[in-house]
């Protein structure tokens, strides 16, 4: 094998790895354990085993620990969330490494429940420590992985509307994906709803709890799927490994619908995307509107040789995290830097004007402004304007304007 192409679903309860080449997968509880008095680390079931026999100290909920900037004291040492995640990822990647006897990662796509810059940066840092180049590491939301998984199936499965219930340890989530056909490009709109009705899977262990769970699912199903025409419905998560307890719910969803079960859907979706990164031309020629992608196009009216024109800084459907535009402009009798925000349907346009407050007064067209546009999430754009002066003729100052714009 000349290199691994992996999709990794990283959650607080479990982590799944899906290997693209041989469709092999691993599911590991997201826990790490340090053996007492040694520097040996174990993850998953091995970690539980060492903790049970009493020679190790275990840490769980590694994602949450990282997001909260938490630390854990194991033995005499205190470890940051990042360090523990780094150790966990290192041990995790040893699984496919040992299986295929290669340490070369061609593409690595992580998928997480909620995208946050901190988590994304942490994953990049973890892979950086393992000397995996940054351009081979990507992070997707679960919603996006769901879309990639579905689009990788036969066309009739995603022709129209696709729904999915994800029932995991203490979380019930409904995902929906729709294909909007356009003149130039088809758009995939996907969203999810974290249902308040989520329950702990432990209640399934007794009959009355199971009946209650079935009832909860039925009421959610009726509310969410009412009168909608689905091409297919997916069920995923640990809760659906066995469906005996959900008799009524299964009747409801299976009525005149194609229903599929897939327990490693997110990891597989990520693996499909990882494989797609290796292609010169994408196998998914769609505009994606979902968590992790921008819903708005950001452009800038500028002047070029040919006259007035508009430069697209970020397009709807672009990944907000990977979008980081840096360029320079020279205002001509203008004391603002303007952006135009356009919604996907092009119906709503909004002009955002950022005044160059505090910039020194100079002759016209002798102030270069460095414009950096990045995104804090799919709804927040960050603009940083920096005075670059005009060479030695009009030296730059330290003046910098930072503004957050709600999209």
């Amino acid at each position, binding site marked *: 094998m000349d290199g691994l192409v992996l999709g990794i679903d990283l959650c607080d309860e479990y982590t799944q790895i899906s290997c693209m080449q041989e469709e092999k997968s691993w599911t590991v509880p997201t826990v790490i354990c340090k053996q007492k008095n040694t520097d040996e680390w174990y993850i998953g079931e091995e970690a539980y085993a060492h903790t049970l026999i009493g020679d190790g100290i275990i840490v769980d909920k590694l994602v949450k620990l990282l997001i909260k900037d938490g630390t854990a004291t194991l033995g005499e040492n205190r470890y940051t969330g990042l360090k523990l995640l780094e150790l966990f990822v290192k041990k995790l990647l040893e699984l496919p490494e040992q299986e295929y006897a290669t340490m070369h990662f061609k593409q690595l796509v992580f998928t997480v429940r909620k995208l946050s810059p901190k988590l994304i940066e942490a994953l990049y840092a973890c892979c950086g420590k393992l000397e995996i180049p940054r351009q081979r590491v990507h992070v997707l939301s679960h919603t996006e992985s769901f879309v990639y998984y579905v689009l990788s199936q036969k066309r009739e499965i995603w022709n129209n509307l696709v729904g999915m219930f994800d029932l995991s340890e203490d979380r019930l989530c409904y995902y929906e994906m729709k294909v909007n056909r356009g003149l130039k490009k088809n758009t995939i709109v996907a969203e999810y709803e974290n249902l308040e009705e989520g329950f702990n899977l432990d209640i399934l262990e007794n009959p009355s709890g199971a009946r209650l769970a079935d009832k909860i699912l039925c009421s959610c199903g009726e509310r969410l799927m009412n009168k909608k025409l689905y091409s297919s419905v997916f069920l995923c998560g640990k809760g659906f490994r066995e469906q005996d307890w959900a008799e009524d719910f299964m009747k409801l969803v299976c009525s005149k619908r194609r229903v599929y079960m897939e327990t490693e859907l997110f990891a597989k979706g990520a693996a499909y995307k990882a494989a797609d990164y290796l292609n010169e031309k994408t196998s998914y020629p769609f505009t994606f509107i979902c968590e992790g992608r921008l819903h708005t196009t950001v452009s800038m009216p*500028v*002047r070029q040789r040919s006259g007035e024109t508009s430069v697209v800084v970020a397009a709807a459907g672009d990944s907000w995290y990977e979008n980081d535009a840096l360029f320079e*402009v020279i205002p*001509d009798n203008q004391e603002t830097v303007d952006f135009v925000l356009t919604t996907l349907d092009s119906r709503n346009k909004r002009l955002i004007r950022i005044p160059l407050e505090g910039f020194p007064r100079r002759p016209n067209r*002798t102030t*270069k402004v460095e414009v950096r546009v990045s995104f804090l999430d799919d709804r927040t754009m960050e603009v940083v304007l920096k005075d670059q002066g005009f060479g030695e003729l009009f030296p730059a100052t330290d003046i910098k304007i930072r503004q957050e714009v709600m999209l």
Partner: protein
Amino acid sequence: MSLWICRQEAVKTPYYMDVLGIHLFSSQELCYVIYNYPLLVLDDFVDDNLLDFLRNELNLGFLALKIERWLKSSENPDDVLVMILQECDYYTTPEISGFRQHLQAFRKLPHAEFKKKKADSLFAISQFGKARRLYYELLGETDVNPGSGLPAGQLWHNIGTCYARMFYMQKAFQAYQKAFFAARDNRMLEKLYYLTLLDEKLTMDEREASLITPEQKTAWDQKAEQARGNAGQSKTMRELEDLFGRDPIKRQAGMNRLITRWKKEYRSMV
């Protein structure tokens, strides 16, 4: 009202523009100096160094080649400047047309007037050493050809001002004296008087001093006092006061920076 998007130019080695004593880091700066200082770039500006800068740093190889061929042909070399402006997309077409007309107008000027304008341009950008040399050259030419039309008094005055700006008070004083005797202009007396206030070693001779009335002296003293007051409130003075108000480490670092800047500016102007 608009925003101009800049070309991506990763300039590693800037172009040193000798006549202005500055480095140019972009095509926009190059266009700016061509457009704003046409007299300084009309002759001998386009050389191998500039062509290398266009080719290697600004990634304008095609333009460099076009210019090379143009210069080898018998076409008007001034058009090369217009070519640069057109290619770099920093000025509009009407602005470039206006620039072309200015160039043509300059070329129609008599030699001495052209040279005087060039010296004045240098003076305007604080290149006093270079300006003074040109004024001297013009003086020499006026001596050889008295009908060239440029009054010696004015040239001596300009030379004096160049010297004064470079803090060569003695030479400035002598130049103003010559300007006074060439033009018999009382304004020169005023300047001579101010120089005596700035430098105690300088004294006006009896003949000059006798021409100053007590009223004039009082008025000039008041003006000098006011100028001193204004200088005390200037931005530079405020910066200095601010610097001396800081703790010793920051003060020393700030002073080093300031002295370096002043030295650089002085070297450039001389």
